[in-house]
């Protein structure tokens, strides 16, 4: 699968309260949550983001709470994938479990600029900045987690195999 869209840049340690503030956690409806995606980091994000766009962040993206409302809000906002130099671990596993594609690359995180056109080949992990012509290889994904993605998430994986 190929993802294509504009880059929205964020810094280091973007926490889950910034991704979806707790004041909106009285629902898990993706259509409600997407209205507030990234609100406390960029109040304009939800109105500016377009389908396919890519979040590019620094280290420790998604730190803090275990709330799956965070990847749900990002996915529902239209974002096709998130690139960061590293992810907080609960956000990392939540993303695989529920099918939000994420990619780790120090170089892509450091070099991609706001608004650059980005193309990501999900199967190879190749990230291409069309605006600058540069390419980056994301860190390889362990085979078990590739299975999760192929099955469409953890619940779908259990439906298919009967176990984790």
């Amino acid at each position, binding site marked *: 699968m190929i993802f294509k869209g504009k880059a929205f840049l964020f810094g280091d340690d973007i926490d889950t309260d910034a991704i979806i503030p707790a004041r909106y*956690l009285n629902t898990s409806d993706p259509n409600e949550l997407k209205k507030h995606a990234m609100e406390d980091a960029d109040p304009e994000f939800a109105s500016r983001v377009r389908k396919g766009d890519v979040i590019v962040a620094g280290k420790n993206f998604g730190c803090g*709470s*275990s709330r*799956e409302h965070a990847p749900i809000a990002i996915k529902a906002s239209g974002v096709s994938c998130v690139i960061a130099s590293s992810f907080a671990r609960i956000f990392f596993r939540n993303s695989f479990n529920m099918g939000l594609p994420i990619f780790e690359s120090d170089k892509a995180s450091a070099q991609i600029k706001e608004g650059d056109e980005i193309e990501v080949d999900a199967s190879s992990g190749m990230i291409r900045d069309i605006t600058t012509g540069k390419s980056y290889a994301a860190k390889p994904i362990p085979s078990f987690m590739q299975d999760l993605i192929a099955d469409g998430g953890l619940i779908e994986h259990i439906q298919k195999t009967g176990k984790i």
Partner: protein
Amino acid sequence: MGMTIAEKILQAHTDTPEFKPGDIIRVNVDVALANDITAPIAIEAFNRSGLNRVADRSKVVFVLDHFTPNKDIASANQCKMVRDFAREHGIENFFDGGDVGVEHALLPEKGLVLPGDFIIGADSHTCTYGAMGAFATGVGSTDLAAAIMTGQAWMKVPSTMKFTFKGELQPWVGGKDLILYLIGDIGVDGGLYHVLEIDGEAVSSLDLSNRLTMSNMAIEAGAKAGIIPADSKTEDYVGPRARRQYTMYKSDPDAVYVSLKEYDCANIEPQVAFPHLPENTRGISDVGEVLIDQVVIGSCTNGRIEDLRVAADILKGNKVAKGLRCIVLPATPEIFMKAEDEGLIRIFLESGAIIGPPTCGPCLGGHMGILARGEKALATTNRNFVGRMGDPASEVYLSGPAVAAASAVTGKISSPQEVLS
């Protein structure tokens, strides 16, 4: 080759005969926990699967503690959804209404989490139970749903970082100050993907309550778990509460750690974390003048009876500063009753503090103590991210209960010595 506590617990809970850090293994879960915010998504996933299978209902725990007593209609509907699921599937460990305590204070108190357990919770502060010598880690709702259905979780085997606190604790220093100091040293991603194993004579001298405070904040360093070896104090706490077998593991002398670090407690004074990350720590003598509008004493981090005693020692005979709201939330009904019996509730009320019910409430900006634009709070909670306790333009500072109580009296972030001298 020697093993760490974390590796021994994983080995006892997996069918994979041999594993090393980085391997992905399936682990049998002793306890699967969720709350009123995370359980609804797990229930939706459970329903979506169509399997309608609860692997072992005795291992499932639901606590409606975050937006309760129901703060609005949407929150009430989320609680109702969990309540209906618990009834339909016969979940016995379901805590609702007057049985509710803040989950990570409640589960140890009820004997539901024990040394040697492998515990997952759809709440990042599930790592609290590491203080009892368990492997406990926060996950998302989908993992939780999977554990409810299969009794298992997938886990990347972590390596362990060791931290040893040597020497004697300085006055008014507790578990909160030690863990803030550690996070200030290694940063909010300093423990990413690792287990923190925390020991040393200063940690051994702490009661279980202060140890739970330390493990609670392992996630604020990005860690998967924060384990403190179980000892006689753990056994004294757990013994009368446990209703099943448990195992107290110790790391082997030749266990492999990715790093070893020692701290001398002679150098650690009461700590304060400045906005907007728990790693922005300073000793109390370096804080300067920070005027505050609100103090919150409570939460899964510092809402236990030992914390309330420390706060009451300082508030006794003193008044909360005019114009400041001091909110005290005993973390469980049992703690509330003890505080009542010991006369602490009266001390708080006479000082001008507000007493609230056991709830996570203000810690995550839910309710019962929301900050206005430009306001500052000092809280004994665990996170000070942007907007954590209310308006995105408010600020949260973190400390232990002693500094929080002293600051409630002076109206600015203060050392307990200032109030007591």
